[in-house]
């Protein structure tokens, strides 16, 4: 259905996604015209500040948008099959078997009333044809694989008996247990201390490589992105401002928003009297400005930015939605 981008095979293709929230005071557009792809085995980082729409985009892909939120326009294709319009039951099967999920708070993504082992075996047996014993053996094996000491004992414990870092390991084991092709990790390390963060990121990276799973890594932490992602999409006010290889985004950001964002991160070892500062704050959904959504805060704004909305266009291998780089706006979004 979707023409494959040349080169790598895309596993996930999101095209022109628009997420709306109908409210009494009119329809809010939370995600607007978002298109991207993730190749097999690739880690795509999605960064942005709160309210940029990154988590909603993730939720829409796995069909877990909270009503009244809905996909108004656009398509989501997983391995060549369109999945955004599937009936609930069918989508549930895909979620279990092909897409794994890791959320920010490991305590809320585990059932406190069931042992960790029961949650793992249940997931395994729902999606794979395994006997009770085989599933349990696999559960123990998985807990060992995610670095939980004495898994034979831990498998019979409840989530509250695990520390935060250990719980997140269990969640990762759950996400990976049926060998999904895509993992959606939404702020997987945000609730963890910095030393535990490093452990979890290393683990997630290693396992995804071993299992050959692609990852959509949603985070506000540029440090996590820098060491994990192959490519990065920067979101602002429900739109993608820039997509490119991680080194392009971090070292040579094209979009003034990305540039400001990178400058505003304090760095250990860099002595700066002041941090670069982007004036103002992200607009509310009810007040997204016309033209480029970033224009009221942009230091390089000019006439056209206030009137016309820029689309993603190729600039030296990266894709940037900014009139600064516009040669020909019309043929911009021919390939994502």
């Amino acid at each position, binding site marked *: 259905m979707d023409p494959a981008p040349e080169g790598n095979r895309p596993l996930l293709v999101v095209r022109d996604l628009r997420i709306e929230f109908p409210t009494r005071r009119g329809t809010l557009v939370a995600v607007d015209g978002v298109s991207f792809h993730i190749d097999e085995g690739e880690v795509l980082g999605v960064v942005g*500040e709160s309210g940029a729409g990154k988590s909603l985009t993730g939720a829409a892909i796995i069909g877990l948008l909270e009503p009244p939120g809905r996909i108004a326009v656009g398509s989501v294709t997983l391995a060549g099959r369109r999945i955004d319009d599937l009936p609930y039951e069918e989508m549930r099967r895909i979620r279990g078997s092909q897409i794994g999920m890791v959320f920010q708070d490991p305590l809320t993504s585990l059932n406190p009333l069931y042992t960790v082992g029961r949650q793992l075996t249940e997931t395994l047996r729902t999606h794979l044809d395994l006997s009770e014993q085989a599933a349990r053996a696999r559960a123990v094996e998985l807990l060992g694989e995610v670095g939980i000491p004495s898994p034979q004992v831990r498998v019979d414990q409840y989530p509250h008996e695990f520390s935060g870092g250990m719980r997140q390991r269990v969640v990762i084991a759950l996400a990976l247990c049926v060998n999904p092709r895509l993992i959606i990790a939404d702020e997987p390390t945000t609730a963890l201390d*910095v030393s535990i963060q490093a452990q979890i990121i290393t683990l997630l990276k290693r396992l995804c490589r071993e299992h050959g799973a692609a990852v959509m890594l949603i985070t506000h932490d540029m440090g996590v992105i820098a*060491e994990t992602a192959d490519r990065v999409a920067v979101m602002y006010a429900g739109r993608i401002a820039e997509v490119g290889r*991680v080194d392009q985004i971090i070292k040579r950001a094209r979009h003034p928003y990305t540039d400001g964002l990178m400058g505003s991160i*304090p760095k250990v070892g860099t002595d700066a009297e002041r*941090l670069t500062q982007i004036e103002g704050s992200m607009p509310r959904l009810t007040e997204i400005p016309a033209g480029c959504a970033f224009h009221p805060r942009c230091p390089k704004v000019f006439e056209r930015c206030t009137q016309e909305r820029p689309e993603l266009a190729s600039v030296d291998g990266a894709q940037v939605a900014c009139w600064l780089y516009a040669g020909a706006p019309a043929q911009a979004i021919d390939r994502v």
Partner: protein
Amino acid sequence: MSESVAVQPAGALVRARDLAKYFDVSPPWLARVLERAPRAVLKAVDGVSFDIPPGRTFSLVGESGCGKSTVARLVVRLYEPTRGRVEFDGIDLATLGSRAAMAPVRRRIQMIFQDPYASLNPRWRVADIVAEPIRTHRLIEGDAAIARRVGELLAQVRLSPVDGEKFPHEFSGGQRQRISIARALASNPDFLVCDEPTSALDVSVQAQILNLMRDLQRAMGLTYLFISHDLAVVYHISDYVGVMYLGRLLEWADARSLFHRPQHPYTRMLLDAIPDLEMTGQARQAVAGEVPSPIHPPSGCHFHPRCPLANERCRAEAPRPRPREGGEVACHALEEGRLPERGGDALR
């Protein structure tokens, strides 16, 4: 740490000595009787000493549960210390018994909290929130004069005086934190205790708040105690940094020496765990183990179960602070010369 702290040259505005706070976390009486459960004591802060010179920023860093927020609360006397004392401008806060005796010092010490959504009364207009310290301490008389002062304070934190008429819910997280800062400044304080003031904010907003805090410090000569778990933020804002672990201060020094030449194995471990923006695709040093429960901390040096250099002495005896370049460090390995040199600068 003990009394043996080397006092920094300039007279300190704030001085904490052997500060400790224990919480009784025993199970309920019935459980203790029926199940013979023992009493339990959580040593949230256990002998912390530091000095903050006037006009400077001292930061405490550490992972969750290390006691850094408890120190903040002890310093502003939201908690009574179990042991030790806090001196502010030469006054031992413990000697100020009554509220009335405390009031003049209270005016000079203010606090900024982490969550700008929880620390502002949602039913009050911003102008009333900011005016509250002025009214409480009777700093200015007359509504017109107070309103003028509130307008000035809002302008100082880069808000508009007309924002005073609004309610907190009309503001974003960063703007609310500006309101918190304006309220803290309203009583003309000398010393601000900031407990994770930017942790709930997005990075671009965090940059605005950090810049503002620094501008205010320069303009008004403010002294900060800054609590954070974010090492990059701490490096940026601090003159002095202390590293806490399970209620104890393991190492402190001026920010540059601490970050460029960390001595304590835990400080080194924390620095190695920072993700590096420049080295894309490179895994950071993963740290072994987790922070143990503060109710049953390890014997001797609390860090020994995670420390690659631990020996018998570390397991048995808590190390005392020793002088290091620009500060102090408490580590047996360093004292015994077992600490390996770090190749060059710790920071790339």
